[in-house]
């Protein structure tokens, strides 16, 4: 829900349904491709209640870095199922091309007025894919103050996820088996619980300016390891994988506390509108991140706009991030070579074009470029690893077409 609803800006309780739809294509050349379709509906009842529903479908295919390091010889990796293997040429980043998944997700939410200035919301969420099911619910209470110029929101959410990966959940730090051999597995399915608590403040400053602040605390427990990611154990001199048990499955802590501070300024410039956001994130895994996001809605009359978008993100590595392990050294308590937990920065450049078509329907087209850069050549790299790119830049192209319309006006 946008601030208009929260701050009573829409002002109308007439029955109406707004439907937003979009399809999105995402492609990383040589790696993952994804297709996503989404429908979001919001029905406003005469009574002041509103019902929101959302359906999402996505399909993913392609290759993803498995965590192992490049080597001076051809490497062979057993697929997660234990059936079959794939090879990586000397000097190349090992990519597991096994990934093929489809996901469906749905959510429904009801917002009810408690009194003239207070609203209560309740929602349910569910998603399912081949090896992962997530179920959740959320509650929110919002209250307007100061002639609806100030809104305070309290939110809570809980999610329960079940993970049943292809080939089972490997025992952390157990060795990747040879093809046709079973890996050492943890018993049963993995589960993960997420509890979010949030406090939000939205304030109208003047005719042109609204600011919004959010603090979210998130507590995640249980299985958070990626069952498909490996760590190379390399020779301390050559940097190549050791001869036996060269690849170990990763292991992450089973608890994580996250704190997120978010601020957004919305400013009307007379014709155009600017959104400027900043997010600070920290967790007890050692990740700290800053995100700055800027969009500028360049209005051409009432029926057309262009919206350039710029996003900058950087993060520090998790404490247990290791690009590789060294043979002969003691194993750490937890370790992962997942590049998403490493030191990195990312940039996004994009442009959205929107126009009113027909009877107040809106068509939008969006193109964005996303790039992710990390520590390609760490100063302490060992032996041959100095010659390889240990964090290849990931580039992605995002294309989206959206269509929005109103029913029962």
């Amino acid at each position: 829900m946008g601030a208009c609803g929260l701050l009573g800006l829409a002002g109308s309780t007439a029955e109406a349904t707004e439907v937003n739809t979009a399809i999105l294509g995402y492609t990383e050349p040589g790696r993952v491709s994804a297709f996503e379709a989404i429908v979001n509906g919001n029905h406003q009842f005469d009574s002041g209640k509103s019902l929101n529903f959302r359906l999402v479908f996505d399909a993913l295919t392609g290759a993803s870095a498995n965590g192992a390091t490049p080597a001076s010889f051809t490497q062979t990796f057993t697929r997660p199922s234990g059936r079959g293997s794939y090879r990586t040429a000397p000097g190349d980043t090992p990519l597991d091309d096994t990934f093929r998944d489809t996901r469906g997700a749905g959510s429904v939410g009801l917002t009810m007025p408690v009194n003239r200035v207070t609203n209560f919301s309740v929602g349910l969420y569910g998603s399912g894919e081949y090896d992962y099911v997530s179920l959740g619910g959320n509650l929110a209470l919002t209250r307007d103050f100061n002639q609806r110029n100030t809104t305070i929101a309290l939110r809570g959410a809980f999610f329960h996820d079940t993970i049943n990966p292809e080939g089972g959940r490997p025992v952390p730090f157990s060795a990747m088996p040879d093809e046709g051999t079973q890996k050492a597995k943890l018993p049963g399915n993995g589960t993960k619980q997420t509890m979010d608590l949030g406090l939000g403040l939205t304030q109208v400053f003047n005719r042109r300016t609204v600011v919004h602040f959010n603090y979210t605390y998130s507590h995640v427990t249980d299985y958070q390891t990626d069952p498909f990611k490996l760590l190379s154990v390399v020779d301390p001199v050559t940097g190549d994988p050791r001869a036996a048990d060269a690849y170990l499955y990763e292991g992450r802590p089973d608890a994580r506390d996250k704190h997120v501070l978010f601020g957004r300024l919305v400013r009307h410039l007379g014709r155009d509108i600017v959104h400027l956001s900043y997010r600070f994130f920290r967790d007890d895994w050692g990740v700290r991140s800053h995100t700055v996001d800027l969009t500028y809605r360049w209005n051409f009359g009432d029926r057309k706009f262009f919206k350039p978008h710029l996003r900058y993100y950087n993060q520090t590595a998790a404490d247990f991030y290791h690009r590789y392990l060294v043979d002969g050294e003691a194993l750490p308590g937890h370790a992962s070579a997942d590049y998403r937990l490493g030191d990195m920065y990312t940039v996004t450049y994009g442009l959205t074009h929107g126009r009113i078509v027909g009877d107040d329907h809106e068509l939008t087209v969006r193109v964005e470029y996303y790039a992710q850069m990390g520590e390609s050549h760490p100063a302490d790299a060992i032996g041959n690893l100095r010659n390889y790119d240990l964090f290849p830049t990931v580039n992605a192209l995002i294309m989206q077409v959206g269509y929005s319309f109103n029913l029962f006006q």
Partner: protein
Amino acid sequence: MRVKQTVGAGAIVILLGMTGSGLTGCANLGVKPWERDLLAEPGMEIDPDVIITALDEHIYFSKEASTGGLGTAGGGCGCN
């Protein structure tokens, strides 16, 4: 790392700076109901495009270690 901290601090300063003198005059914050014309325009919502927000959050969730911000951090997926 200093560059990263400067980016974060700079964003906070800009956020506060662009709100103008309103911060020093809290008693005058806000508008009268008949002064909401610009605030009611399309694009002035805090989250003007919930679809883009949802799609982007899914992408960044699967590519970066941070989640959440605008709403709650939300449920998971087996994103690889």
